[in-house]
């Protein structure tokens, strides 16, 4: 019985690289000593310099959460093996991480955007995606609203059908962006 109620640090953490994900996860899931059968969460993270994929696992054999951090993914081309061969339910979690961060999960059969429309081109949860009305962090010099940090593969590329309405001061920048987009899609 706990006398003082507090949230404890009840998490074990391990760090791995993208090449080890398949083996580590398979061992954690299948091995009799571990039996982490429940994937509690799968999350993408953009630290500003690199991408992470963070898994949280649960096993009946231990009272701790197991946090597996797959770190060191490049921001230009983040690629990590999919864990859908163990947990089919990770499929949507990976789709979400792809949609929000552009992380490519190799082996996921259904890797497409899940929230954003199909003609959307940027990745909203990346740190360099600033909200247009973000007064708190905006450098104040202009917009980076529809910037393209990551280009999808050639045949996935879609034209930008909608442009956000920006102030007249940034009209020149908008023209420049439209020209860029045209160049990229033609």
């Amino acid at each position, binding site marked *: 019985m706990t006398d003082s109620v*507090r949230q*404890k640090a009840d998490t074990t953490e391990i760090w791995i690289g993208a090449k080890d994900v398949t083996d580590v996860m398979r061992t954690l899931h299948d091995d009799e000593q571990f039996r982490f059968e429940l994937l509690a969460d799968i999350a993408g993270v953009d630290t500003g310099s690199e991408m992470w994929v963070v898994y949280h696992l649960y096993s009946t054999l231990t009272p701790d959460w197991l*946090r597996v951090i797959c770190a060191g993914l490049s921001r230009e081309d983040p690629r990590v093996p999919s864990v859908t061969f163990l*947990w089919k339910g990770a499929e949507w979690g990976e789709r*979400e991480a792809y949609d929000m961060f552009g992380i490519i999960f190799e082996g996921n059969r259904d890797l497409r955007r899940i929230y954003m429309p199909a003609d959307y081109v940027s990745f909203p949860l990346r740190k360099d995606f600033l909200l247009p009305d973000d007064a708190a962090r905006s450098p104040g010099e202009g917009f980076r609203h529809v910037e393209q940090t990551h280009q999808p593969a050639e045949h996935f590329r879609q034209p930008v059908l909608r442009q956000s309405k920006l102030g007249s001061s940034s009209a020149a920048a908008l023209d420049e962006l439209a020209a860029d987009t045209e160049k990229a899609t033609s």
Partner: protein
Amino acid sequence: MTETTRVRSLDDPDVFVETPATIFDAVPPYPPRSEREAEFYHLDDGEMLINLGPQHPSTHGVLRVVLKIDGEKVVDLDPVLGYLHRGVEKICENGDWHHAISNCDPLEYVASMFSEAMPVLSAEKLLDLEVPRRAEYIRVLCWELNRVASHALFMGWLALDLGGLTPVLWGFIERDEIVEMLAALTGQRLLFNYLRIGGVNRDLNHDFLSRLGDWMSRAGNQIEQSTRLLNENEIFVRRTAGLGVLDRETALRLCMSGPPLRATGIPYDVRRAHPYSVYPELEFDIPTRTEGDSYARYLLHIDEVRESIRIIDQVLHEMPDGPVMAKVPRLIRIPPGRAFIAIESPRGQYACYAMSDGSDQPFRLRIHDPSFFNLQAVGVLMPGNLIADTMAIMASLDPIMGGIDK
């Protein structure tokens, strides 16, 4: 290049024509983006695609499901999400930790006491903050009341999707009493914004307690009445029993949690698996069922309501005196670190992975919504069933689109 103007024909998805399609057509007006999408939108003889939603009442929000049907049978389906996407995680990163509480409120809008706890509990874990016991008891009280309200609505909705109107009205009566009660406590009916980092917004008041006592005196009776209405109703049982059967392995592989998982026989409840708040001091059982069908999920909800009432009873008897807020500065700078917290919401494990960089804003606030993962099961459960039964199966998974679309 004229390639960008070529879209799929509505008559034959394998043919690309130059007529633009609208977003309401079942077949997307662009080439397939993934292996699975190509497979789904390729039709065999006799198959056709129909849209269910996004404005269909039985989708419990704005969920669109493209059904591939052969006659009345569902062959395959493709849920299309995002109609309610607001980017809550991004908004939370741009406000401070206190703003995140009200931003997380509308995620699970039927039981928002649970979703608003996400930034609160993760901030407390990062701060290693001790919360006054009275505040913890009040939290548990609010959570369990909200669980009963949510489950009451679930039973009504399930029956409504099967064509029965009466239970949903009864469910709303039950829920309305609780919602009014919580409004007397928090000031709001739906999005309470009541929990605070370090405690709760305000102490219990007379209006709330008198309503609660009033409700507790007849809650058990009302549940028995509701169950008499449905439990042995021939139509209800025939349309739920044996339908949408999940087995243990599949449920685990689909990362499910909450009642759909416990209906397959796995007693995974975060209140016991990873005890938080004052749950270790309370006596309650984790009801499970082994059938794994829609009817088992329905019965499980009733059992859980009984357990919740048991918890509320204990909480009211053991409620300690004292402050309801820890001493926390207005401007909180959370120490750098990573924290994972999970609580048991009416729909399953509501979890949050928070990262802080030492500023007053969350660096990353990842919300894990149980309905998002539970909804994936429709892809396994629905094929082979009639279109009309897909409603019953989807309703028995109890998805809330506010949380799914974030």
